[in-house]
């Protein structure tokens, strides 16, 4: 009996399907013929008297598309109705001047969260620029930053840069030092740093600068806010990790920077070179850090760009003072080895190479494919080896407004430890 009912239902369905299909086809053919004939007939009728609407069946056939795009239309109508666009523009106007000497940009990065950056140029002085940044994220993550930059404060060749920030990172990770640190040893801590640094700059050429910076930083280390991870003190003790509770440090930095890119936003030729030496010391802590960061852009053909990067970080204890664990060079995160969690590998020294291939998909959208390798060492000169390097690869899109304004980065990076999705707004996320 049940089988018969099922058969009957199936037949009902088939009949209905055939009926509807036949109806649609005949009607479609019908309206097609009708339209063709009506066209002929219509062609001799006054235009204002013609039937120009769609037939019933066509209106029905358009329904799926109408329904699917309904939310889109509601959004557009809602925006119009609420005058949100006007409101947004007015808000932007309040913060952004016509000539963009005053400018506001929304900003987002995984490390700092979402917020905005306000920039005021021509402050007191022709070339003086003030920047204020505030962004907030989950677990009370925050970055409050202010900077004053004037590349020609004293003369055309002598400038000054003052930078101060408070950065609260509630879920920093530490896996233990060493290139073989295990994923299972992941621990969590909260790092809050307040930093002030003033740098005198000398510009022998417009694209080249030497800097001497003096700064002060205060770092406090507390229990991490990521409840899914064990705390730092569950695996490590203060005697194992210098700077276990943080500390205050004075810093002196010497820096050489050369920017030979043909365009800052989307370079296709040229390169950047950074060489920095940083001396930091406190009562118990102290170290010297050397950084070499070289980037090269090569246009392969018709706008396709190969971007290469080599970076080396090296730290040395300053006498009997040690490098605090949170200042150890690290791999993983938004910048170096994007397929790994932030600071997945830390040790005294670091070596990193990457290659990124960029293809313009249209004038505003670039696709990137990258591969990167890195390794940390206890002592890069003594322990250097080509084995056990960690690699990460991936790709994504970079969207750039025609005026270089809005930059959006969407990247997917993969490594031996999984896949990470990275999103950044107005941030050079993972950029070479």
């Amino acid at each position, binding site marked *: 009996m049940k089988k018969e009912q099922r058969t009957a239902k199936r037949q009902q369905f088939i009949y209905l399907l055939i009926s*509807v299909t036949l109806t649609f086809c005949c009607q479609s053919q019908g309206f097609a013929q009708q339209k063709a*004939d009506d066209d002929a007939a219509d*062609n001799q009728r006054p*235009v204002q008297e013609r039937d120009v609407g769609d037939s019933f069946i066509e209106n029905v*056939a358009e329904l799926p598309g109408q329904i699917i795009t309904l939310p*889109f239309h509601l959004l557009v109508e809602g925006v119009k109705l609420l005058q949100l666009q006007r409101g947004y523009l007015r808000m932007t106007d309040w913060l952004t001047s*016509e000539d963009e000497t005053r400018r506001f940009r929304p900003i987002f990065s995984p490390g700092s969260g979402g917020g905005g950056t306000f920039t005021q140029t021509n402050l007191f002085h022709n070339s003086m620029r003030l920047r204020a940044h505030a962004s907030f994220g989950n677990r009370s993550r925050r970055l409050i930053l202010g900077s004053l930059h004037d590349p020609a404060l004293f003369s055309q060749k002598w400038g000054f840069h003052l930078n101060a920030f408070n950065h609260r990172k509630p879920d920093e990770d530490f896996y233990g030092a060493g290139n073989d640190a295990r994923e299972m040893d992941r621990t969590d801590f909260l790092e809050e740093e307040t930093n002030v640094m003033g740098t005198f700059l000398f510009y022998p050429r417009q694209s080249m600068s030497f800097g001497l910076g003096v700064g002060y930083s205060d770092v406090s280390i507390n229990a991490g806010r990521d409840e899914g991870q064990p705390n730092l003190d569950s695996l490590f003790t203060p005697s194992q990790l210098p700077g276990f509770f943080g500390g205050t440090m004075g810093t002196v930095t010497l820096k050489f920077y050369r920017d030979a890119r043909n365009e800052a936003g989307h370079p296709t030729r040229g390169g950047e070179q950074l060489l920095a030496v940083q001396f930091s010391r406190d009562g118990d802590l102290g170290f010297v850090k050397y950084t070499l960061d070289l980037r090269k852009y090569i246009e392969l053909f*018709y706008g396709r760009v190969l971007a290469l990067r080599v970076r080396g970080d090296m730290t040395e204890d300053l006498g009997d003072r040690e490098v605090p664990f949170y200042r150890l060079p690290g791999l993983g995160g938004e910048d170096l080895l994007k397929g790994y969690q932030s600071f997945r590998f830390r040790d005294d020294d670091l070596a990193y190479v990457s290659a990124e291939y960029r293809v313009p998909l249209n004038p505003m959208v670039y696709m990137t494919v990258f591969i990167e390798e890195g390794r940390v060492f206890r002592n890069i000169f003594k322990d250097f080896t080509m084995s056990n390097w960690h690699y990460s690869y991936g790709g994504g899109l970079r969207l750039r407004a025609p005026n270089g304004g809005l930059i959006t980065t969407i990247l997917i990076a993969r490594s031996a430890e999984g896949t990470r999705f990275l999103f950044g707004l107005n941030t050079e996320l993972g950029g070479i």
Partner: protein
Amino acid sequence: MPGSGKTAFVGLTLLFILLVSNPGCSSHAQYTRQPALSEEADDRSIQQPDYQEVGLYEDGLENVAGRPVKDFFNLAAHYRKLTNNHKQAKNVNALQEVPNSTWFTNRHGTRRMSKDELQRGPNRGTGSAAEGQLIITGAKVQGVSPGFTIKDSRGDVYFLKFDLKGYPDLNTAPEVITMKFVYACGYNTPENYIVNIAGERFRLGEGVTYTNKYLREVDVKVEDIQEVLNRAHRNADGSYRAVASKLLPGKPVGPFKYAGTRKDDGNDHVPHNHRREMRGYKVIAAWLNSVDTKANNTLDMYVEEDGRQFVRHYIIDFATSLGAGGNGPASSRRGKHGAADVGNMILRALTLGFWVEPFEKKLGEKTSPSVGYFDSELYDPGDFAFIIPNPAFKRATELDGFWGAKLVMSFSDDDIRAIVETGEYSNKSDEEYVTRILIERRDKTGRYWFKKINPLANFQFVAATDSKRVVSFDDLAVTYGFEVAGQTTYRYRLRYRNKNLTGYAYASGESELVFNSDIVQAIEEISSTSTNDSGNSEVDRIFSFRIETQRGRSGFGKHVEVYFYLPPPGSGIPEIVALEREN
């Protein structure tokens, strides 16, 4: 099985009702003897419509995202595409032409304009007064194309747009040249003039403000004016070259969209995406490399003419045409991809950029600063992309394309030369270059579209020497030199009420249809048997020729059917009453 029987009954009843309610299945249209409609009569008096704003983002989002998704899920559209049964334009007359209206006036396409007329275009004066102060009454001091609204000593109001520093003629020449082509085609355009103005003639009026990009009213200062002038190109004598666009007559009521109708305009009956002149503009705009056909580059004006008040529709901005990119020279990418060509982006991504498109090899190619990138080599009339997808262009069929191509082809080399001259290029070589490229692009346009449709046109009855009747026509592909008459064969047969009356007759190389003995006999038979079936003897005497064309050794292509009224012997001359073209 009562259930299945019931379902089948309901389904078949539904089918029956729909079929019965659809007379199209069983009837066909019949032409009557009457002249083709020449006026749309959409200029009846109406109340002034409200100003209609079309937001840039709204227009862009709708056409870039909303409409394509809607079309993707439109089953009827897919069915039409599969069966090559496209929805044709709704405002054409029986000869497949566009009647005059508030949108379009037949000009060069139907009656050749003289050189003077082409060069004058819509201009009725000489531009802003040559002497006296020019009072700045409005300004657009920011953005890609800054300019002023000025009132001259005669009291006429113009909007001035300048060339950018380093790019003489680049912005101003296309504004005039493209406008004159578009006007000659039949569209409404503003009066644009090239003017050279000494800087000291400008004077800032009282209380002039402008709306900045954040929609805030800002006072215009003398420094702002100077800033605009500083960015403008100066002639050798220190004057500024500008295009002066005369204020349109009437009251502005906002731009028109290329789809739907204006609800507050009682004369706006045909959805704009179903108007042939809107669809066919695709071909003209592509020819002129005019890629920015968004709603905001149009304007509806509420005008008063002959005591009637109605809306006239204008196309107003040609700043991104020929080789002008609006904010500098155009690139070779122009016309190849729109702002968000997702399909192309995916393809490029999948091929990791190793697929190089021809236009990319031309990027950065050195061009004249007065012309920008404007070529014919990479121009593809069948695959031209506009910055934002245009809903009327999306609906364009081959018939619309053919109509547009006929207009493009109506410009002879001399016509093109005459109009380009009015761009007043500083260097003769630039003028010659633009002329040459337009000629080459015109030919590509014609060659492409005349292959898509049987390009026979201008049918008329002529008296033959042997007293037999002859229908002559122009084979536009042959007329314009794309095909050779000697390698072209036409076959045709007489039809009556959608039925063939005779077998095929053939005409090789000759663009005329002769009434041979079979045809004459068939007509006589019909005349003797037909006894006013319709009660209208004129309807009963409407016959048609269905004509197909063969080029070289290829098969016969699409047909064109020409309907004609054949009066009884001795009572008048035959008349062409309608044309149908296979799409």
